[in-house]
Structures are given as structure tokens and as C-alpha cells.
């Protein structure tokens, strides 16, 4: 018996006798052949009291430098937004935390209504009429959108902007290798998708086109133009969007995007070293019956009362099995709940205010950094929450380390994913990074770049 089980010696005796076996081992012996039974104890450390598990996990936590411990401008797909306290409270409630997927609508109206509200919020955000109740996270949402396109039009070629998150491109490639689609990458030009190359790449065999808004370099793409270029092809236009700037950026639904997916972490979810968060998945009406995952719908019950249920389940694996639109089962309900609570917390005006604030601060930060010796803009496109600079040949990894030693994480080394930007640095803003923080970044980065150039100079 452990702290989580309850079979006392007295219970055990009665239970075994009711079953008619003489020991628990007999239950296993009679069902599992001897040659596959584990004849030894598991080679794992002994169990620990709660306080010691806490102590151990706290020590591990202390070996990490979190966004609580440094001034961080690291983004590149996940962002250190403030998660309001109401979210912790609501997600911590047993009633939201512990139920399974709402298979019994009578005792799951809370979850079902929350899903429905979440879908409504995503529709509002994206300007697309249908949304599912969540998929795993951003990059796999992109890949799932690819699968949707594959099912919808069967065309074998996917055109992918190099501005799409590297993880999305990689994940899409992994999935596409399975279901069978070939990927053609379109390069960037002046920080955005090369419009000419993009248009040229799209043809009658194109099943889907993929871009990101803002793109990985932080630049705002001309989404409407990118979508328009695919208009005369069979391609499904798929955009991966950051939801935060959608308070000020033209929504995908108004740009001709067919499927909008994205990483939901920024909507009230913690960084958590990368997950769990959620992926959102919205589309035009045309793709409703191709959507992956759960969808909650509104209905009226036998008593004439309004209620919510899982709907269009004939798309799903538990009904359609090999003919399902996706294999997804467990998704990210709790994280999506955080998403709708966060959007409610921000509210209609708050999302706009947040977008405008980030726009101003991002501009200010870019101005401060490019004013530094040895730092130049990597592109001049409009940026709303993240931007890229070049460190003029300095070793960016070393620059970052120097900054971190001063308590400032200046961002992401673009060279990790883009050979063409070996000295690129991607700098992200959130509402948690104040002007004072930006000024401190400028100071620390300036010193670090100077020091690195001196080193390089000295060793050259």
C-alpha cells in the first residue's frame, strides 16, 4: 500500500477471498505467461516522502535560469507573456483539471461550454468561421493542416515560405514524408517571403502553401498578397499566426487564408520549457468536415434547454477509425481553457491595447539596438513584437553568453536555423519587458558586441 492506494491487510484478505485467489501474484501468474513476467524488481530508486520529492524537483528547478531569473528577450515561437493569476486558480480547480474528454455531456457542460467559448474566441481572433477545440501545439498544427490539404485535394506539392518557423517546417516534413507530399521551400527576400519566387512555385499540383505571420524574423508579411498568389491553384492557403498581434494585424480571414493555425502558448499558458500549450486550428466553412480533433457545438436538449455537445464526431478516430480526418484523441483542453480565459481577461480593448504597446516597444527596441556600434537591422519590414538584427560578424553565441552573464538574455541566434544569417539575433518583446529593460539590453548588448569584436580582432 502506498499513499495513493488503500488496500489494507484486512481489505486484501477479503478481496482475495471474494475473487477466489490466494494472492495478488496469482492474478498475474494465471494471466501472464511465466516467460514474459518480470522476475525482478524494477531498477528504479526507492520512493520518497512528499517533502523529498518536492526538494528534489526544486533543486532541479534551481539549476535552470528561467524568465523569472533574467531579463529575457528570447522568443522565436514561445514568449514570456504575463499569465494572470485567475488562470492558475481556474485551471487548478479539480473540476477543470481532472475530468476526461467530455464523453458524457450531461456532466460535462462546463467543459463543453468552455470549448465552445474558446472556439468562438478563436473565430473572432482569426476572422474564420470555424475553429476546433485545440490540437497539440503550433508546429504539429501546421503539419495537421497539411494533412487536411492532402485529404482535401490530394495534390502532392507543398510550398513553404522559409519565414515559417523552422520547427514547423521540420514537423511538416516529418508528417509529409508519411502521408506523401513533397516540400518546396521559398526563400526570404528583404526579410519577407520572396513574392516572385512564391508565385512562381505555385502551380496546379500545389496542394497547400504555408507562411507565417509575423514570420520567423518578426516581419509582418503581406498575407493578402501571399494568399492571392495561390488563388488560381488548387492549394489550401495555410497561415501560422501568432495570436497576440491579431489585435492590430489584419486577420487571416480577411486575407484569403483558408486555414489558420498557430501556437497558443502566448494566450495564458506558461513557457514550461516548451509545453504543454495548445495549437489552434481555424478554417473557412469549406473545410469544416475536414477539421481534425474535437469540435463543440451548441444545441437544444430534449427538455428544450440550451446545451453544448461534441459535434461532427464522424470526422474522428473513435468513430471513423482509419477513415478519420486525424488520429488526434487527447488534445489540449486545459491549455485551450487558459486561452479563452486569457482572451476574456484581456478583453476586446485589451487585445488592441496590448498590440499597440508591443508595436511601440518593439520599434523602440529596434531603434536602440541598431543605434549600437556593430549592430544593424537584418531587415526593415514592419515588426510588431519581434525583430532581427545582425551583429556584423560577431559570434552571436558568445555575445549571448556575455549578455546572460550580465543577467540579460538578448534573444535567439538565428544562425542555428538560417545559414544565411550566421550573425543574426532575434529579439522578442512582451508586455513584461519595460523601457528600462530595453535600455538595459541595449547597454549590455552594446558592451558584449564590442567585446566580441575586440576578441575577434585580437585573435585575427
Amino acid at each position, binding site marked *: 500500500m502506498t499513499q495513493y492506494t488503500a488496500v489494507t491487510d484486512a481489505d486484501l484478505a477479503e478481496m482475495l477471498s471474494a475473487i477466489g485467489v490466494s494472492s495478488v501474484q496469482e492474478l498475474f501468474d494465471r494471466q501472464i505467461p511465466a516467460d514474459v513476467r518480470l522476475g525482478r524488481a524494477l531498477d528504479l530508486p526507492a520512493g520518497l516522502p512528499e517533502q523529498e520529492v518536492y526538494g528534489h524537483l526544486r533543486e532541479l528547478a534551481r539549476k535552470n535560469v528561467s524568465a*523569472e531569473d533574467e531579463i529575457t528577450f528570447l522568443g522565436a515561437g514561445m514568449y514570456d507573456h504575463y499569465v494572470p493569476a485567475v488562470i492558475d486558480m481556474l485551471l487548478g480547480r479539480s473540476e477543470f483539471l481532472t475530468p476526461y474528454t467530455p464523453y458524457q455531456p450531461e456532466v460535462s457542460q462546463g467543459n463543453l461550454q468552455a470549448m465552445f467559448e474558446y472556439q468562438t474566441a478563436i473565430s473572432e481572433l482569426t476572422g474564420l468561421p470555424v475553429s476546433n477545440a485545440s490540437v497539440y501545439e503550433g508546429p504539429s498544427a501546421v503539419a495537421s493542416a497539411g494533412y487536411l490539404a492532402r485529404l482535401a485535394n490530394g495534390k502532392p506539392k507543398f510550398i513553404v515560405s522559409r519565414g515559417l518557423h523552422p520547427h514547423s517546417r521540420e514537423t511538416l516534413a516529418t508528417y509529409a514524408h508519411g502521408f506523401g507530399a513533397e516540400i518546396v521551400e521559398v526563400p526570404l527576400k528583404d526579410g519577407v517571403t520572396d513574392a516572385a519566387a512564391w508565385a512562381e512555385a505555385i502551380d496546379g499540383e500545389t496542394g497547400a502553401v504555408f507562411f507565417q505571420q509575423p514570420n520567423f524574423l518578426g516581419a509582418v508579411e503581406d498575407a493578402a498578397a501571399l494568399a492571392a498568389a495561390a488563388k488560381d491553384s488548387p492549394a489550401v492557403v495555410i497561415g501560422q499566426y501568432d495570436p497576440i498581434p491579431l489585435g492590430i494585424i489584419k486577420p487571416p480571414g480577411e486575407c484569403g487564408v483558408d486555414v489558420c493555425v498557430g501556437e497558443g502558448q502566448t494566450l495564458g499558458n506558461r513557457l514550461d520549457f516548451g509545453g504543454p500549450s495548445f495549437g489552434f486550428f481555424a478554417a473557412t466553412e469549406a473545410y469544416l468536415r475536414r477539421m481534425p480533433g474535437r469540435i463543440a457545438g451548441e444545441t437544444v436538449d430534449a427538455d428544450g434547454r440550451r446545451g453544448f455537445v461534441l459535434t461532427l464526431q464522424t470526422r474522428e478516430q473513435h468513430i471513423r477509425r482509419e477513415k478519420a480526418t486525424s488520429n488526434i484523441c487527447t488534445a489540449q483542453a486545459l491549455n485551450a481553457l487558459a486561452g479563452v480565459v486569457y482572451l476574456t481577461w484581456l478583453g476586446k480593448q485589451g487585445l488592441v491595447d496590448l498590440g499597440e504597446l508591443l508595436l511601440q516597444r518593439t520599434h523602440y527596441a529596434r531603434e536602440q539596438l541598431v543605434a549600437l556600434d556593430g549592430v544593424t537591422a537584418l531587415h526593415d519590414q514592419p515588426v510588431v513584437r519581434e525583430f532581427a538584427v545582425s551583429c556584423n560578424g560577431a559570434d552571436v553565441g558568445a555575445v549571448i553568453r556575455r549578455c546572460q552573464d550580465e543577467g540579460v538574455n538578448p534573444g535567439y541566434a538565428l544562425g542555428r536555423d538560417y545559414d544565411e544569417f550566421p550573425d543574426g539575433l532575434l529579439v522578442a518583446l512582451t508586455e513584461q519587458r519595460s523601457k528600462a529593460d530595453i535600455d538595459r539590453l541595449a547597454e549590455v548588448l552594446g558592451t558584449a558586441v564590442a567585446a566580441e569584436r575586440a576578441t575577434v580582432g585580437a585573435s585575427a
Partner: protein
Amino acid sequence: MTTFNDNKLHGDPGIEAHALHHEIPVTSDGATPMQRDRATTIFEKGAAGRRAFVAPALDVPEVEATKLLPPALRRDAVARLPEVSEPELVRHYVKLSRRNFDLDTGFYPLGSCTMKHNPRLHERVASLSGHARLHPLQAPERSQGALELMYNLERALGEVSGLPHVSLQPSAGSHGELAGVLLTRAFHEDRGQVRTKVLTPDTAHGTNPATVTMAGMTVVKVGTNPDGGVDLDDLRAKADDTVACLMLTNPNTLGVFDPNITEIAKIVHDVGATLYYDGANLNAIMGKARPGDMGFDIVHFNLHKSFTQPHGGGGPGSGPIAVSERMKPYLMNPRIVRADDGSFDLDDHGYEKSIGRLRGFQGNYGCFVRSYAYICSLGGEGLKDASETAVLNANYLLARLRRLGVADQLPLAFGVLCMHEFVLSGAPMKRDLQIRTLDLAKRLLDHGFHPPTVYFPLLVDEALLIEPTETETRETLDAFADVLADILREARE
């Protein structure tokens, strides 16, 4: 039973004249004013201008906004998000929450879902800022704790499964399945073979066949024998060198451990195919038997089942996979590596022939923290106790149902004993009492119990799949059995 302490103080005179237990009355039309409010969405509440959010002040010199973002790229119509104050927000969602049945309020014997207790310690440790506010792209030197945790978890999962090489990346069971099937594809491709058939028993969970299709392969169904195991003849007939893989759940969704597993493995391996273990039912065998020892090549774990992630009303989950030596080269990157000096790193090219990534970053780390805490709390012995008790509880409940005569209308579909769960067939009940499994399910709700999984697995008519888990008390199992008996009696009368 503890003797009840008799510190009984009685109420002030007169107070007993009232009912002390208030229930919102159920009106004839089923809608009291409080109930009417309940299905009103947050979008229908609030009023223009209300807000819960206070934006930080603009602290940088303001630049005309259209200069920074030209009108052509700008949003015109504002997204119609809710407009509510913080108190409105809180009340709305707290009230919504109370319309869910949850594990902390009652028995939740949903078969195949392993609704075991979710220790709150896990929420506490996962909330530590060193875990919760750690950016996934933080430099490895500055995320040593996270990498160590993941490394330790990989090793523990490797030990439990008997398959040493682990990738934590997949986001849920179905995602792990996809990883596994893509791994299988890579394995065969690496050997210059194109194999596209995947065998799945008819008892398989829907995610298995759906995954196969998604990975560009074809499902071939294998039958079930009268004992609930794989029909060996059917398997032999279908196993040939066009077969890529057999996906198996063991114990399967009938709660039956397939006694022919060694033979099955042999048949599959003999034709050069891989053997995939759907780990949704791992809770039956932890510390008792290991997929690796049974000959499986790939296993996925549902951390949200066996390793007690809270289910969150449908996620998050986490579906790590463990594989044998021969599947290792194809695992997803990045790989966590431990240097000789004990430090950890993420190697983007750690597996040479990797199938690539299946998602962003390193997986659902917040889930890893919780499941790792669980493993630390229980240790090897405790995990074994969990499985032993899960199997004991299931068999005890089954025995109680037999004793109470419930089994007459609801017989066990296969076998005599069961592993951690069992399937009853509601066919006799439907025939004799004219009630269906769904009716039974609804009536259980009136008694404060969540119904078991119904109408799955598909091959059992009017199926009722019951998984009590190890964290329930005998008293709860007794009460549940009594209620099932009562409901049948009620139907008989």
C-alpha cells in the same frame, strides 16, 4: 473503521426546525433562475467598456502607429472578445467548472482511460518558476535541471518498458503512435523495403487505425479469438513480407493479457515486421512484465494515464515512446545526451537517421515534471503496487458483480479473470430488461458515479468497459457494485 470520536455538540435549540441541506430545487421545467444563467456564454455577458486587464503604461516615446504598421496590414474591425470585469470573469468560469463531473468528486471508472488520483504535489512542483517559466530555447548550460529531469525520466521509462531508448517528444498517445509508425517506415526504408500494411486487431483503439492512415499506410484488421486474444491463424494468414508492423495493446481493450504474446512476436518478427505496443494499458503491468521482454520494438506511454497526468477535460497529455536497439537510429531529434562530466545537452543530430521532429521544442515538459515526480514518489515498488492494486481492484469489482448477480444480465465478455479493466456485455440486459448500456450510464450519474466507457470496444455488443484503477477504495467498489445491482433490480421491477 476508526471508532468515531464522540465530541458531539448539539445545535442550539430551535435550529433543527430547518432543513440544513440546501438543494437548488429542480423545477418542473428543469430551469430555476440560477440554472437559466448557466448556459449563457461569456460573450453574452458583460458590457461595452468593462475589462479585467490593465495595460502597462506606454513608457517609450510614442511614434505614430500607422508609421510602424501601415493601414493595409492593419485590422479594421476589432475582434469581438468579451468585455467583463475580473469578478465577472471569475464567477463565470467557476460556475462553469461546477457543471463538470470530476475525479476529485467521485468515482470515474472510464475504461481505457486510467482515471487514477492526480496528486497535487505534481501541480506544486510543476509551478516552480524554474520549471514553469523556463524558455524552451534557453541555452542547455542554463537549463541543466530540465535536461537532467528529462534524462532521468527517459531512463525510468526505459526501465519500466524494457526498451532502453526513449524520446519524450510526442504530445499524446496518438502522437506517439504516429512517431512509432513513421519509425517503422524509416526502418523498412532504411532496409530498402516499401512495406505499407499495418496489422491491427479489431479490439484496437480508434487512434491505431487512424494513425496508420495518417502515416500513409494501410490498415489490415486481425481477428480476436474466443479468449479475447489475437486470432493466431488469422495473424499467420496475414503476416507476410508486405507487412510493416503489428500494433497491439496488451492487455488489450478487453482487459485480456494475450497469453500467446511470445508466439505473436515471433510471427511478426519472422516476416521482418516491427511490433508496436500501445501503452494505454501499461497500468496493468508496471513492474510485473515489460513490453521489451515480450518482443515489442516500440512502445508509447500515455503519461496522462499510467503516470497520472491530470486529464484536463481532454488534454494536455504526453506520449513518449521507447524503442529497441534496432529502432534507435530513427528516433526524433533533438536527443538529450549526458556528457562524461555529468552535464547534459540537447543534440539536434543525436539520432543519425532520425525521422525528424514531430512538434516544436522538446515535448510537453510540464507533463514530464509531473510524471517524474510521480515516479520519484512511488519508486519501483510503488509502481508495482499501483499495477498490482489496479488488477486486484478490477478483479474484486468483477467478483462483487458476480456475487450480486449483476453478471447475469451483464456478463464478462471474455475470460474469467481480468487485468486492470474488464468488459461487460449489456446484450442480455437489453434483451431481458429492455434497457441499454446508455440508459444504465445515465442512471449511474443519478447515483453520483461517472459511467464506465460505453460502446467500446466495438466488437462487444452493448459494451461496458470498466477500469476502477488502483486509487479507489474497496468501499467505493462495493458501493458501485451495489448501485449497479440496484439499477438492474429497479429495471426488473
